[in-house]
């Protein structure tokens, strides 16, 4: 498949994630949409990894080009997991206080 398709797909998913962040008010959903964005990036990285591999393999069949991107994706997942633990902890803390996860109610701090 042409790399462009993957780029488009990733961008579309990414922007759906952005749209979710923008439109939803439930903090958890917003957070999920951010995860969706990260996944879109992961997909893009993997496809770029394959793209570079595809280019490099033409000259060197044993090439390992593209490995780093896949490891990067791995690290993203690691970080995402850590982030989720912290994020959900904060959301739960919030919920315990106000019994709501509506981010629009988060407006004690403004101006």
């Amino acid at each position, binding site marked *: 498949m042409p*790399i462009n398709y993957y*780029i488009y797909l*990733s961008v579309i998913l*990414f922007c759906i*994630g952005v749209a979710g*962040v923008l439109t939803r008010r439930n*903090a958890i959903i*917003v*957070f999920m949409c*951010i995860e969706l*964005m*990260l996944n*879109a*990036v992961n997909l*893009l*990285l993997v496809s*770029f*990894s394959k*793209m*570079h591999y595809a*280019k490099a393999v033409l000259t060197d069949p044993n090439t390992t*080009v*593209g490995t*780093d*991107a896949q*490891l*990067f994706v791995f*690290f*993203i997942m690691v*970080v995402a997991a*850590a*982030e989720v633990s*912290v*994020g959900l902890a*904060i*959301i739960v*803390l*919030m919920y315990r*206080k*106000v019994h709501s996860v509506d*981010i629009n109610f*988060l407006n*004690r*701090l*403004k101006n």
Partner: protein
Amino acid sequence: MNLIIFAAIAGVVMMIGGLFVKEKRTVSGLALVCMIALLLFNSLELCTSVPVFHIDLNGMLGFTNLGLLINEVLLLSGTIYFILQGRDIEKVGDNVPDYYALIFFVFCGVGIATSFQSLLMLFLGIEIISIPLYILTASDKLNMKSNEAGLKYFLMGAFSTGLMLMGIALVYGATGSFYLNDVVNSKAIPAAGVLPTAESLVDTYRLIGGLILLMISMSFKVSAAPFHFWTPDVYDGAPTPFTAFMATIVKVAAFIAFIKLFEGTHDKLMGKYQMLIAIIITATLLIGNITAVFQQSVKRMLAYSSIAQAGFMMFALFSFNAMAKEAIVLYAAAYCFATIGIFSILNRMDDYSFDGYNGLAKREPLLALLNTIFFLSLAGIPLTAGFFAKYYMVAAALENNAGFLWMFVIAMLCAAISVYYYFRVIQAMYFKTGDGQKIEASPVFRYVLVGVAILIIILGIQPGLLLQHLYF
């Protein structure tokens, strides 16, 4: 390297130490000892450029004088911060050792952010800085504002992480590597005078797209407009000692990361995109300064002021020359010292509004004087470090960018606006009538604060004392 390793170790020490030490003062003392140790280790590396442990870095990290010097400045600020605000950190909540541990982890991230050579390390560094901060922000669990700030910070920070990753992905797509050197030398950046081929143009687009996204996410981290929105809310909501920490050390570290990130590509590529930086600078200066004018709370004003100061620090990104590096070091020092000083006094006050400062000069003449010096430094008045910080920034940027004269004029007008809100505090302290709040201040606190003020004035007269370390 020393910083990264020992900061991580210090974090663990604090975690474990917390299990055994119940007395909060002792915890603070332990943290201070760790901090001084970090400072010494980093000084050692700065002087000898040999780390304690030899680790094969695989090109992921690279240590330069700039990074180490900034580390030094930040660690010094950190030491001062611990001395001056240890008491206040103890008051935030019950998990004091954990707070210190998180702060040390942040320092670990700071070490990475000032030395990364690979986008992967950038990502990890920024995340190691961010995640503890989310927690520190939300750490005052009884305070709704703190919780709210934590959640806001977290959601927006995660969003910007997404943007950053998208940028990194695009850069990778263009260059096939995460290493800064490879990015700079990749074919995606057409060499001067060489006509780009159609293929390389595709990569160029991706690179530019990626860099713009990176720029945006880093702007977010340094709270440059219009990506600054988290800053006032978070700084306002977070427990004050942690606000001080975020506003100074973390922000400067993010700046260094920002600068390192674009250092290489600037000459070849982003140099042509100075307009973008100029727009961000202008927006940051205007929004930061103007919004700060109407604030009622000093703490929140300082948040906007930190945005405004970020605008000035962005000049280093605009110019990218040898002087810009000097400028950022000096600015980091001036800004950190002054802001930590201000926050240290603010911490001890009950009323954070401007009126809370009324008549302080009568009650605490020394503290008022010191506070004045700090504010003057932030405002960039000569004889304080802040003047030379701004001076270097502008001089570096002006050196070969006369076309952006309008930006400098705006910057200077904004500097004048900044005087407006900084001086409101001075006015309150000296000229308004009031009883002045009682401020608990131990002699050590005072001496250290005086030391900071002297440091600021020395740097304001002879900035070379600090800057010479950049070169040998």
